[in-house]
């Protein structure tokens, strides 16, 4: 190996009990049988130490992709490759994980094998959009690595203005709160848009995230253009025996202070006989009481999803949360799932045609107004979409009567 770079600052990150990524890099530098990997790790450590010293990054972008795709690789070229030669091309391969991030150890080892053949030996489980990030491969090996893992079932995720890799929570696999088949929603949506994942041709990125309930363990509302959250619309299930058990264990006061008082809509009453009454009309499925008393309380049977559209972070009009566009949608039959996919298509199509360059769905909605957006995608308004009706009288009401009529007709039809 060439000169071993000194890393006094990074060495500080080997101290302390938390697993050290620097120690991992050093293992690759010092212990790996493949010299290419040793050198790459050494070079990477050198460049990173240089960043720590100067407090600056030294990577720049470029264009790298695999044959047939326009996205999925984050190209990185070193600006200090003269000194840190072995890591001068250090691209990331974004690979879509299985829905729910389940793995067998066998499969992980197989992926390690392929990656050690071509890449740096560094893998991130997972990036914030959910991809497995194989970090550090040169341009030539990018294609080879991809070809090899693509053969045994792995495909690239998104990058650039395209549909991005989706995320879904553990959910039905190991969680009693789950009101949805997260796996199926995730797969159906992602695999309907495979083309849009691989070939960036949209105004900007579009992200799906699926959480099985309002706890939103995927931060879907805040982080995705289309957030799908499980919920139910019949009555919550109350096991009164377990309610009593819980009270016996924790005390009445504990239940009052931590359960009934914390309900955002005062929908819970602890009765004198230690039974719990739920005002199901006012329960907004926030999940709090179920979280605290998960043995006693469970979601109802009439399950489905709430869909929020338009979440994203700061650029360029400030953070946006997704907002309710579909208060409730059943997902049971084949047709239900098909119509979910169609709904996503309608949104993406409309946005593809009407979004400005670099404009996310949320920003587009902000620009054209939620009412126009709903009109465009053919969704009827519903008071569940709002915190409260308009506070400003600055509005054209020419069509009031016609719109009122629509409401009455829908009510009649229902």
């Amino acid at each position, binding site marked *: 190996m060439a000169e071993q770079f000194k890393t006094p600052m990074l060495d500080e990150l080997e101290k302390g009990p938390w697993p050290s990524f620097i120690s991992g890099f050093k293992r690759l530098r010092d212990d790996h049988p493949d010299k290419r990997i040793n050198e790459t790790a050494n070079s990477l450590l050198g460049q990173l130490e240089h960043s720590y010293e100067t407090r600056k990054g030294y990577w720049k972008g470029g264009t790298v992709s695999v044959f047939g795709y326009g996205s999925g690789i984050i190209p990185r070229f070193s600006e200090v490759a003269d000194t840190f030669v072995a890591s001068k091309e250090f691209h990331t391969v974004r690979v879509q994980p299985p829905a729910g991030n389940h793995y067998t150890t066998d499969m992980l080892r197989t992926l390690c094998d392929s990656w050690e053949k071509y890449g740096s030996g560094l893998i991130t489980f997972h990036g914030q959009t959910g991809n497995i990030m194989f970090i550090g491969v040169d341009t030539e090996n990018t294609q080879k690595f991809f070809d090899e893992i693509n053969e045994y079932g792995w495909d690239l995720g998104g990058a650039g203005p395209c549909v991005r890799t989706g995320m879904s929570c553990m959910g039905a696999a190991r969680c009693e709160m789950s009101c949805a088949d997260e796996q199926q929603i995730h797969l159906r949506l992602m695999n309907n848009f495979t083309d849009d994942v691989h070939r960036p041709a949209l105004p900007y990125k579009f992200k799906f995230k699926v959480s099985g309930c309002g706890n939103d363990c995927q931060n879907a509302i805040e982080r995705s253009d289309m957030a799908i959250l499980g919920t139910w619309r019949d009555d919550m299930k109350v096991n009164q025996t377990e309610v009593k058990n819980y009270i016996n264990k924790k005390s009445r006061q504990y239940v009052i202070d931590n359960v009934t008082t914390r309900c955002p809509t005062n929908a819970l009453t602890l009765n004198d006989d230690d039974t719990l009454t739920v005002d199901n*009309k006012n329960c907004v499925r926030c999940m709090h009481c179920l979280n605290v008393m998960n043995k006693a309380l469970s979601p109802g049977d009439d399950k489905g999803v709430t869909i929020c559209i338009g979440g994203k972070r700061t650029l360029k009009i400030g953070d946006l949360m997704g907002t*309710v566009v579909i208060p409730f949608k059943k997902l049971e039959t084949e047709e239900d799932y098909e119509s979910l996919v169609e709904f996503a298509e309608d949104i993406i199509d409309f946005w593809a045609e009407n979004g400005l360059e670099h404009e996310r769905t949320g920003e587009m909605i902000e620009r054209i107004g939620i009412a126009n957006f709903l009109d465009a995608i053919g969704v009827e308004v519903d008071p*569940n979409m709002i915190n409260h009706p308009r506070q400003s009288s600055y509005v054209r009401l020419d069509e009031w009567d016609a719109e009122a009529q629509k409401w009455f007709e829908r009510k009649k039809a229902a």
Partner: protein
Amino acid sequence: MSENTKPRSPTESGCPDGFQYMHPLMRKNYGNWDHHDHPRPGVLKHVSKDGEPIWTVKCATQRILDTFSLRTLCDIGDNFADGHVHFTMRSNIEYMVADEAKVQPLIEEIEKNGFIVGGTAASVSSISHTQGWLHCDIPGTDASGVVKSMMDELIDEFKNHNMPNRVHITTSCCQINCGGQGDIAINVQHTKPPKIDHDLVGNACERPSVVARCPVAAIRPAVVNGKPSLEVDEKKCICCGACFPPCPPMQINDAEHTKLAIWVGGNHSNARSKPTFQKLVAAGIPNNPPRWPEATAIVKKILKCYKEDGRPWERMNDWIERIGWPAFFEQTGLPFTKFHLDNWRGARNSLNASNHVRF
């Protein structure tokens, strides 16, 4: 100017001191009150820290008083309330008496003269209102008429404590809304852009200041028929009528398209929640003199739901906050439309960014 026609210079005395007119018992106990209660609707009993009680009888007026009515109210004050009165900010007149025995006779005298006792505590107080066709230069309706018609039908709610908490209604005769916000507000809402009388613009208006007044920049200077005038981008115009006061040729008022709208949940008090703005619930209501039955019907319906479903001490906004907007529209039977979705500044805060949904 000749000596004897030289105008008199004003004495800039400003705001008169209220103490000179205040009931002596109130003057005496100024800042020294201890508590109050409600012996009956329309009557308050306040007790000072020294145990001195004062009874207040609250009485509705028509706000715009002819001198006959005002003199009658004064007579009552002389005969039953030591010659002192107080007007509330909702144009109710209040008589204070030191002697409980005077309360009942006072009430009888008020009612004998055609005034109404009530408006205290959990009642619907008098509707605060504005000038309307009677005096303003830009009104779309007649606030006094709307109020008279409505209070005729809400009189039982004025005379009793039937509501969960006090109800403050306002009405305004143009979108400027001098009447302010309220638990319920009945306001003018225009539905068509102004029609411009181009012949008059040149004379009547300072064009740049009209252009500047439009909240959505829909007005442009233009030359029409060779004369300087204005033109409105009708697609942008939100029909607010703000251009009308500075430029009367921007005719916004229209017998047909000037409508009423109803807003709820404006709450000024800081009790429990912070003050809240009112929200639009019904629009397109005919501006239908002389008795505006359609508007009254909606107000009554809203009050009925609130009365039946609200819990004690819940103001209108608290009640709706608890039951949720879907239930509000369900209970009142009012239609929910895309126009209820806000799209003005900061509108996004009004959208439901959560899974909180009611079924």
